C-alpha cells in the first residue's frame, strides 16, 4: 500500500519570505511520480510541480522547488518570495508508474501575511 503523510496541518509565512512544506511517503515501488497540488478557495486543484522518482535532479518551477530525498522518502516543497496569492491548501501526491490513481496527503493550509 502507498501512503502520503503531510505532518503540518497549517503553516504561515510573511510576504516575500520563503516557506517549506513537508511531505513523506511510503511505497514499495521503485518507479513512481510525486506531485504538489495547490487548492485555493475556488476548490480547483492546480498542479504546482512534478518529480520523477528516477531523476535525482530536483524539479523547479519559477518560485517553487522541491527537495526530493528518495532514500528518506521525503518530498518537500519550497516556495520562495511568497505572495498573497500563494495562500491555499497544498497537497502532496504519489502515483506509481504501474498505476494511475493519485494517493494524496491530508494537506497543509498555507497562510501568507502581508
Amino acid at each position, binding site marked *: 500500500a502507498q501512503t502520503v503523510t503531510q505532518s503540518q496541518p497549517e503553516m504561515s509565512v510573511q510576504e516575500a519570505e520563503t516557506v517549506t512544506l513537508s511531505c513523506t511517503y511510503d511505497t514499495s515501488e521503485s518507479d513512481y511520480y510525486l506531485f504538489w497540488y495547490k487548492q485555493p478557495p475556488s476548490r480547483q486543484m492546480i498542479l504546482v510541480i512534478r518529480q520523477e522518482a528516477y531523476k535525482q535532479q530536483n524539479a523547479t518551477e519559477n518560485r517553487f522547488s522541491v527537495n526530493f530525498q528518495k532514500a528518506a522518502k521525503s518530498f518537500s516543497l519550497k516556495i520562495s518570495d511568497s505572495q498573497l496569492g500563494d495562500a491555499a491548501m497544498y497537497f502532496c501526491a504519489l*502515483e506509481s508508474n504501474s498505476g494511475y490513481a493519485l494517493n494524496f496527503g491530508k494537506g497543509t493550509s498555507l497562510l501568507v501575511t502581508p
Partner: protein
Amino acid sequence: GAGVSQSPSNKVTEKGKDVELRCDPISGHTALYWYRQSLGQGLEFLIYFQGNSAPDKSGLPSDRFSAERTGGSVSTLTIQRTQQEDSAVYLCASSQTENYGYTFGSGTRLTVV
C-alpha cells in the same frame, strides 16, 4: 473546452434522494477520474475511465455509487439513496497521458440534509 467543467457547482439534496453529478473533461483527454474530498478524510479515488476500456471502479464506496462515460467524453457520477455521509466535494479530473498530473475541475459540493 479550455478546462474541466463540472456541474452543478453546489447541490443540496434530501436524504434518500438520487443525485447526478456531471463532468465535461478537456477535449482530447482520454483519461477521466473522479475523487471525493471529505473533511478529515482527504481526497479519495473513486473511479477511473481510460478510452474505451472497462473502468476501474475499485474506489467506489458502495453500490449506491455508479458512474458512466458516454462517447469517451462527458461523465456522470450517480449517487442513489443519498446519505448524510455522502456530503463532500466531488472532484473530476482528466489527463491526456498518465504520470504527468491531472487537470481538475472546480468540483461539486454535495450537501445531504
